[in-house]
């Protein structure tokens, strides 16, 4: 049995206790809501995209330590990146979560930084859905923003 300490790394608990970028953005910012159908968690991602760059991002909703901290770390990482960079970044993350989409190439050289701490989640497959909830919701918001 993988040890629980693989899951609850210090940096994860830190983002859980003190989430960054929690809050809302008013329209014209885009927002998207995601549900984890297994546990009832939900997350809303607010995205302010201009000229192909993520100017601001915030999130609200309820969830476990993994979904909250993963989303918190994600918002920190993507703010200021171009939409194209964010796409590659999300693919890199999902690849780490063993959820790569075969059709899309993954740039393994992208550095995930603190987010690497979520690697331990892979040993707890049911929690992968928790870790990726914010990211999938982000993808939906991005699609919205490019409509």
């Amino acid at each position, binding site marked *: *049995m993988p040890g*629980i300490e693989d899951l609850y790394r210090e940096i994860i*608990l830190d983002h859980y206790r003190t989430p960054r970028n929690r809050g809302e953005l008013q329209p014209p910012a885009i927002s998207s809501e995601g549900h984890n159908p297994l*546990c*009832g968690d939900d997350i809303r991602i607010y995205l302010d995209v201009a000229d192909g760059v993520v100017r601001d991002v915030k999130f609200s909703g*309820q*969830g476990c330590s993994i979904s909250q901290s993963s989303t918190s770390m994600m918002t920190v990482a993507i703010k200021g990146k171009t939409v194209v960079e964010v796409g590659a970044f999300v693919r890199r993350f999902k690849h780490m979560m063993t959820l790569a989409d075969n059709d899309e190439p993954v740039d393994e050289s992208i550095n995930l930084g603190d987010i690497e701490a979520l690697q331990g989640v892979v040993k707890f497959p049911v929690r992968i859905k928790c870790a990726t909830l914010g990211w999938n919701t982000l993808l939906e918001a991005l699609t919205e923003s490019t409509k």
Partner: protein
Amino acid sequence: MAGANRDFDSAAIRRDFPILATQINGKPLVYLDSANTSQKPNIVIDAMSKFMRETYAPINRSAYTLAANATELYEGARNAVAKFINANSSQEIVFTKNATEALNLLVNSWGRANLKTGDVVLLTHMEHHANIVPWQMLQQERGIELRWVPLTSDYQLDLTSLETLLSGVKVFSFTSMSNVLGTINPVEKLCAAAHAAGAIAIVDACQSVPHTHTDVRALGADFVTFSSHKMCGPSGLGVLWGRKELLEAMPPFLGGGNMISEVRLDGFTCAELPAKFEAGTPAIAEVIGLGAAVEFLSSVGMANIRQHEIAMSSYVLDLLTTRFGDDITIHGPRNPELRGATFSFAFRGIHPHDLSQVLDQSNVCVRAGHHCAKPLMKIIGANATARASFYLYNTTTDADALADALDSASDIF
């Protein structure tokens, strides 16, 4: 063992369930997720393998001895299930793939044949998705109206306005026991009220049939649904019981082999009950496994099981409230007589998912989430809860392990 039932040989019962002897990291398995799905006794596992090793064959179709023997075992199991719930006849027992299919069958067959735009179906706020979503699908298709019996502050159905709610209702469909709150509903009274209002009564009995003696005739219900896998039986099997006249008047649900009497290029006629509702090759080995489960439960005695679970409920409620006081919120009735041994709770602000992960370090298996009752979760003001559910094979030792494991959770968060 404090709080336990004296006539109940827990140790012997536990020996019947091989998985309960499992050790992980040297610690025993504490399985507290039986409201989700129950473990299987040897008698069930062995009945299935023995059947597959010695007698497996198609049923109700072929004339050779092997097939006749298989048919006898299969129909024997149907009889056993009929007897277990005191049905009038085994023709009233329809096997489905799970309780969800049984409810969908009712909505699609009885519902489509009897409900039109504007007709009202009454549900309750404590229903499982299986007794909500199929009705919502019919609502989308037909424009029926869904009405809801609300809850009281002590997690009971609020029946003060039941008569008003029932006025003009065609179907009252409700759970016999909440899979989240543990609340046991007054089924006989609700069936009588439905009938007085001219409605039929459907009882989602998934959470009561495994735990207490069920007499479908005494309940006065029109239809009762439950699942094999929650009552020590195999997965892949559910049961619909219905009053024969009603089942006979209903159109078929799934079409195919076994459910027909005649098929021509230009149309078909239906077989008699219960074949009419059992299209295709059934879950042969699983039905035989359920027959063994019913035999097992009857040998323990449903009244004994209920007594054991009342005792467990007392013990668990005492233990958790004494030990954790305000740190724990149990969403459900306090009176052990009014509830099953299923406890949803919030603990020290720790998210249930995290809590269940930490309990797992002590091999304590509880479910975390919405328990397929999202509307109810919203009403009780939780996104998710942790849920510990006890069955005949659980003892006070399991309850103690739960409490100890809860204590250790606070260290991390």
